[in-house]
């Protein structure tokens, strides 16, 4: 495993030479199986709770119902591709509301940035699906094969009926979980009870089988056999976080100022002139990434804090204060190592303030947008070809298409008013309004209608702008669109 230990340039020596170049096979490392030991303590408990909540939400959410009225799906969270709608409890999004999804993703990444600069990689350590499902799979593995030492013994042991039974049992349960995971995914895209029943009778759409199958396999392999390889080699996040975290972020840290010099200790020995680390290796044994936290900040470390639990347990046994490994900042540890008192940890820093302010701004903008979201939407598309035509009487005509969206569940009548053009007149293809200023346009429930509008004005009209106002006859809800009116340059 690569480590990011500091290079001391002052002790530069010529590199040793004369060594054999490594054989081809040595350029590729065989994966070493990691046997994480079960930790006990505060952080292990938190991780069990987080696992229960996140998995509970993932598996349970599609079954939550939310009444929206007749003819509309009553599933609380549903991405309904067939009718091109996304439902999230009281929020209903249409394809043209895609910017809310973009906003949500931006918020999510900002939250990730903020949390990383405050608490390091807590996302990786507690909530990342890779971590959660791997943790679950290790729990199953432990149930069938025992804890670390037992598992290591079992893997070395010859293939007996006992070993085969245990291994088969483990993989069978893994596959069931994987299938359940892949199956739960498709529930978000269809009516959950219907697609769940249809899946087994062969009535579900083909994509449902594909995605259930793909996610079953990825869950099984990523959480069962690939595990830490995903984080170290496949995930971009460990690389990105290098740019987001700093020496003031609270990370899982080995306090070398207190621990060194380390070494095994007999009861009779004194604690004077030595560090608190007794080199018991418990922190390494519980690590799901198979690293040694005492080597410092490392790419592989997902900051799951299990080494804190392991070390605290030992510190209690040897009657030393807890927290030899703890959430701490690099700057504080370095200060104590110099014999100084570290300044109090600062949560409010320019970096965190900027993230928080930007999040607040985007969040309020989205909330405001959602709260005032209109149920009508009018868009004017001006003809680009031809941009205008000259009529035989010398007047100028421009063509427009009005796209009218009714997001309400009942049909409505909209009043169209075209204004702002001096001496202008308009007509709508296929409709008769006998020179009246406004025109009634019917729109179906959930309808998207297009109306073709022709606007005529004198070639000398001064202000070449035309305003299309669409107003709901019943509620007065209004959408105003301003477009240009083109003619030959004067």
């Amino acid at each position, binding site marked *: 495993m690569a480590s990011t230990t500091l*290079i001391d340039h002052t002790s530069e020596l010529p590199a040793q030479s004369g060594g054999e170049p490594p054989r081809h096979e040595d350029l590729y490392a065989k994966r070493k199986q990691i046997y994480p030991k079960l930790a006990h303590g505060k952080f292990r408990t938190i991780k069990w709770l987080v696992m229960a909540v996140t998995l509970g939400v993932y598996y349970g959410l599609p079954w939550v119902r939310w009444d929206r009225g007749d003819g509309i799906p009553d599933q609380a969270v549903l991405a309904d591709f067939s009718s091109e709608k996304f439902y999230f409890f009281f929020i209903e999004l249409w394809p043209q509301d895609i910017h809310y999804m973009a906003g949500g993703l931006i918020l999510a990444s900002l939250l990730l940035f903020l949390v990383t600069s405050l608490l390091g990689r807590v996302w990786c350590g507690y909530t990342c699906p890779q971590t959660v499902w791997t943790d679950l799979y290790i729990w199953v593995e432990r149930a069938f094969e025992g804890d670390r030492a037992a598992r290591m013994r079992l893997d070395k042991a010859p293939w007996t009926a006992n070993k085969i039974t245990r291994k088969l049992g483990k993989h069978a349960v893994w596959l069931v979980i994987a299938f359940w995971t892949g199956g739960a995914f498709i529930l978000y895209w269809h009516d959950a009870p219907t697609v769940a029943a249809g899946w087994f009778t062969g009535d579900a759409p083909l994509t449902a089988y594909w995605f259930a199958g793909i996610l079953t396999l990825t869950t099984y392999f990523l959480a069962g056999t690939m595990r830490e390889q995903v984080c170290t080699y496949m995930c971009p996040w460990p690389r990105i976080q290098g740019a987001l975290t700093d020496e003031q972020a609270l990370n899982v840290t080995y306090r070398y100022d207190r621990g060194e010099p380390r070494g095994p200790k007999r009861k009779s020995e004194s604690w004077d002139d030595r560090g608190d680390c007794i080199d018991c290796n418990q922190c390494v044994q519980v690590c799901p990434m198979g690293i040694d936290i005492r080597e410092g900040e490392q790419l592989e470390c997902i900051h799951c804090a299990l080494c804190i639990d392991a070390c605290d347990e030992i510190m209690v046994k040897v009657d030393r204060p807890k927290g030899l490994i703890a959430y701490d900042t690099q700057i504080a540890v370095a200060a104590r190592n110099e014999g100084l008192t570290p300044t109090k940890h600062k949560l409010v820093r320019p970096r965190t303030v900027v993230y928080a302010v930007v999040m607040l701004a985007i969040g309020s903008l989205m909330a405001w947008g959602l709260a005032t979201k209109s149920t009508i939407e009018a868009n004017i598309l001006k003809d680009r070809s031809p941009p205008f035509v000259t009529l035989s009487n010398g007047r100028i005509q421009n063509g427009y298409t009005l796209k009218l969206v009714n997001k309400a569940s009942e049909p409505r009548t909209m009043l169209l008013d075209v204004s702002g053009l001096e001496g202008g007149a308009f007509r709508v293809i*296929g409709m008769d309004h006998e020179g009246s200023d406004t025109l009634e346009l019917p729109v179906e429930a959930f309808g998207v209608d297009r109306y073709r509008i022709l606007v005529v004005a004198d070639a000398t009209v001064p202000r070449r702008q035309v305003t299309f106002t669409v107003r709901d006859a019943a509620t007065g809800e209004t959408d105003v669109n301003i477009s240009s009116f083109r003619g030959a340059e004067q």
Partner: protein
Amino acid sequence: MTDETKDIDTHSGVETTGHSWDGIKELNNPLPRWWLYVWYISIAWAIVYMILMPAIPALPGLGTNTKGLRGHSDRVEVAKAVSELKTARDAQSIVLLDAGLEKIETDRTLQQFALAMGESAFGDNCATCHGAGGRGAIGYPALADDVWLWDGSLDGIEYTIRHGIRHDTDDGTRFSAMPAFGRDGLLKRSEVDDLAQYVLNLSGRSDEPEAVLRAAPIFQQQCASCHGADGTGDRTQGAPNLTDAEWLYGGREADIEATIYNARNSHMPAWDDRLDDATIKAIAVYVHSLGGGE
């Protein structure tokens, strides 16, 4: 391998690959071995793919490209998809067959369907000459304005689409022929020039009153039978109005002279046997909606 045979970098304590460029060495942080296996698998997959799918192009001496065991052809797939699309569209466009053009234009559902279908068919078949949105070009009438040579009503537009203009093989085609007055020796060059001034004067643009006076009897004799005594044209013969600002072949003096001298008789194909009924009706409604429909 023992440690003695390894080349260890003193700074980082990491083994090097043993490669050296001007004394710069490369650390060996080994890739996971499964990564290497994934690469081998992709090579194996490439071989399978080459056997199953068309893979090697028609190199000299090979004759044709390899077809692959699956016999896959993108060309065939596209043709199949296009015909499936046509079947699906035909099933929908059937609603246009039973409805009259008037009904199609005023019924919201039928209109939206016809405009979408008409726009697409217009783009494929008509826009080459008439331009996108029917903007027109020199020699190709604009369909978005209110000037019509033959007929701007829904039925008239449909008739023109079906039978074309001066289309040899269609008995119902719209037909008229302007003589080439100069080229065929019907008028002298000077008379053609005078007539051009007369035509310019119809839209108030001539500055040679004597030429206009000289040409007046010629116009009445040669031109008025089609273009009308006052030059406002005659739609039954497709004879354009000469008094307005619209000029299909250009309105400058030289353009008008050339038109009188050589005549202009352009063609539009009949689409009756090229497009199905529903498509023709959809195009008619679409053209009618462009801006000048009557």
